[in-house]
């Protein structure tokens, strides 16, 4: 019942949004916030129940495991914040004459359909349904990226549609090869689920599994944004409205990563984990280094955030590639990144509303004109660059620690990349936030609702950075076991505020 309701709400919200007449345009906003609030509550309840070991299902096609439940929770919480921010952001753009009622209505319809697709992908029990749902996210976001109807936005939307469609077709091919391997290994009927694939993995043709996983990694890796499959990302993120860019970066990346991780777990059950680990390490370090180089020379702050997303995707890939404690650390990194990116994109959206430019050199003195957004932007910059006491610092440290003994050179290059990332982010933020602002611009935030979303996400991010609920730890532990089905107790270092020091947190992987 819970899961069915979670899937129904965005569909109902989309229908209502489509039917809203111009004179009731406020209804779109209330429906968006109300629907996403309900979705967030349901997603958290489902995640809680899954963490307690319960099965939450809706027909045989939807029953999230720990990994799916974690992604559902991320999508629910970030989605609620994005809905609030969307309302504020779009109100400001409507007042400037940038977007009219029909475009705003189109935005909210696609927004809800986007969430339906993401929830379906996260909760799906079958690889094929996951593919259909992730393909649906591509379709839903194509027009969201082009919502401003400018030539560059249209190009970005087309590029996003084509590159992701081709990538997902390779993902489909990989999925079908996995299903073929399962059929040959003895799977019967049409209901081949993640769990049945895992059970049959040991009997699958190892070479076929390897080839299938490569197609999966290329396919879903395109969606995740691994280098060299990332070319659509900077354009899409820089042209999409700020709330959509935040969702693409924080939530959709988690959804597509979850698909990769499911297949990784199956592959690791079929053959030695070294195969998948090497591939992920290769994509990871390439993404980190490429993104760090691009971040140093970029002139657009929205592109900077896109490159940061690519870098964090690389960090997660490194964590999953290193294995051991790196897996749990990478899952926590996924969570923290999903919270940090909205901080950055939302505040960047407020900066854009004030300065009407995404060029770094045209933004000066944001701290004077937009003190709240500027502080949050700086907080997000520090978090994304891996500064303590934010959670990303600990997860990066744990990931590097997981890899230092067996991959010292990879870790060394990663650290160099992180240093370049830090330099790029801080330099850009310092230029934008300090200095003399343009005299023609009035001081003051554009919209109070955008501050509500910023505050909401910032609070959650900061609280989770210093306190991790036990259910969340359980969920991450169970999710880690899906990725690498082996029992091994390894310590993950987290801060213990009561003791006033860091202590090892024992996690069984």
């Amino acid at each position, binding site marked *: 019942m819970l899961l069915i309701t979670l899937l129904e709400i965005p569909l109902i919200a989309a229908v209502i949004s489509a039917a809203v007449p111009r004179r009731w345009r406020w209804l779109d906003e209330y429906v968006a916030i109300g629907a996403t609030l309900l979705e967030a509550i349901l997603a958290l309840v489902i995640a809680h129940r899954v963490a307690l070991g319960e099965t939450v299902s809706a027909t045989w*096609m939807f029953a999230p495991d720990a990994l799916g439940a974690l992604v559902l929770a991320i999508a629910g919480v970030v989605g609620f914040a994005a809905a609030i921010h969307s309302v504020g952001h779009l109100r400001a753009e409507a007042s400037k004459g940038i977007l009219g009622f029909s475009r705003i209505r189109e935005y909210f319809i696609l927004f809800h359909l986007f969430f339906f697709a993401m929830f379906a992908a996260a909760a799906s029990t*079958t690889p*094929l*349904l996951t593919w*259909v749902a992730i*393909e*649906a996210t591509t*379709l839903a976001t*194509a*027009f969201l990226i*082009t919502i401003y*109807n*400018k*030539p*560059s936005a*249209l*190009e*970005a*939307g*087309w*590029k996003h*549609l*084509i590159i992701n*469609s*081709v990538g997902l*077709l390779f993902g*489909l*091919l990989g999925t*079908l*090869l996995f*299903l*073929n391997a399962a*059929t*040959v290994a003895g799977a019967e*009927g*049409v*209901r081949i689920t993640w769990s049945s694939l895992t059970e049959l993995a040991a009997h699958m*043709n190892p*070479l*076929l599994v*390897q*080839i299938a996983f490569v197609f999966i990694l290329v396919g879903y890796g395109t969606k995740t944004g691994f280098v060299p499959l990332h070319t659509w990302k900077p*354009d899409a993120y*820089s042209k999409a409205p700020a709330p959509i860019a935040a969702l693409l970066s924080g939530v959709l990346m988690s959804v597509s990563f979850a698909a990769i991780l499911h297949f990784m777990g199956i592959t690791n059950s079929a053959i030695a984990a070294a195969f998948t680990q090497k591939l992920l390490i290769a994509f990871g370090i390439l993404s980190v280094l490429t993104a760090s180089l691009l971040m140093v020379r*970029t*002139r*657009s702050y929205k*592109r900077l955030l896109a490159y940061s997303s690519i870098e964090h995707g690389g960090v997660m890939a490194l964590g999953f590639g290193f294995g051991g404690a790196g897996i749990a650390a990478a899952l926590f990194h996924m969570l923290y990144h999903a919270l940090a990116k909205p901080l950055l994109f939302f505040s960047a959206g407020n900066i854009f509303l004030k300065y009407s430019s*995404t*060029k770094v050199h045209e933004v000066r003195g944001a701290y004077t004109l937009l003190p709240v957004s500027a502080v949050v932007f700086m907080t997000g910059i520090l978090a994304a660059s891996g500064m303590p006491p934010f959670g990303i610092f600990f997860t990066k440290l744990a990931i590097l620690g997981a890899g230092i003994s067996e991959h010292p050179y990879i870790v060394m290059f990663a650290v160099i990349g992180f240093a370049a990332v830090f330099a790029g982010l801080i330099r850009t933020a310092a230029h934008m936030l300090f200095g003399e602002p343009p005299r023609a611009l009035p001081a003051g935030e554009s919209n109070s609702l955008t501050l509500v979303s910023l505050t909401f996400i910032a609070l959650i991010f900061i609280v989770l950075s210093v306190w991790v609920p036990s259910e969340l730890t359980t969920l991450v532990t169970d999710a880690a076991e899906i990725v690498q089905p082996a029992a091994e107790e390894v310590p993950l270092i987290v801060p213990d505020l009561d003791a006033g020091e860091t202590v090892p947190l024992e996690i069984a992987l």
Partner: protein
Amino acid sequence: MISFTFLAVSAFILMILMNLLKKNPSVVTAFQIASLLVAAALMSLGLKEGAYGLMVAGALSLIVKAIVAPTFLRNRINRYNGYFSASAYTRIPLTLTILAVLTGFAHFIITSAVPSADPTIAALLLASIFGMCFFMVNRTGTLAQTIGILGIENNIVLLTVFLGLEHSIALEIAIAFDILVWVGIAATFLTLIYRQFGSLEGAPMTHLRED
């Protein structure tokens, strides 16, 4: 029942033809023939095995890819003067060489790892998939990119059928619906692109720069 040998060889030849043809209407026609073959394969196999899901998939494939998609594409060609596609980035000899390499690579993958009753058929189908990817990369027009994606999907479906994979009817309908929505969105994009840039070619699309 249409033989898989005929299907695989036809799909492979159509893939090569699409890579060599210069005019968009001809490419759309080749794609339509390929889609008809896919639909016929699905329906005849469904009839032979009494598999209702396959027959449904075949019917949906016929409607979406053999009728709706080509209609959309021809409509865009006629409306936006997309009769001629720009020349491909590579000339014919190099195109054929690359296709040969891709075919060899597909054969290597199949013979190494994919168990099937006839490796040659599977290799031809996999080579058709790679060939359509190359088609997308090698052509300058947005129409070619659209046809390329649909062509890749056709060949994946054929490979799936040949490998004997079954899906539930619900999933077949979901995949077909997905493709239908994709066709609609792509057609809308082509309209927007023409209105914005005055052409369906990729050359005018140069607004994405470091800004």
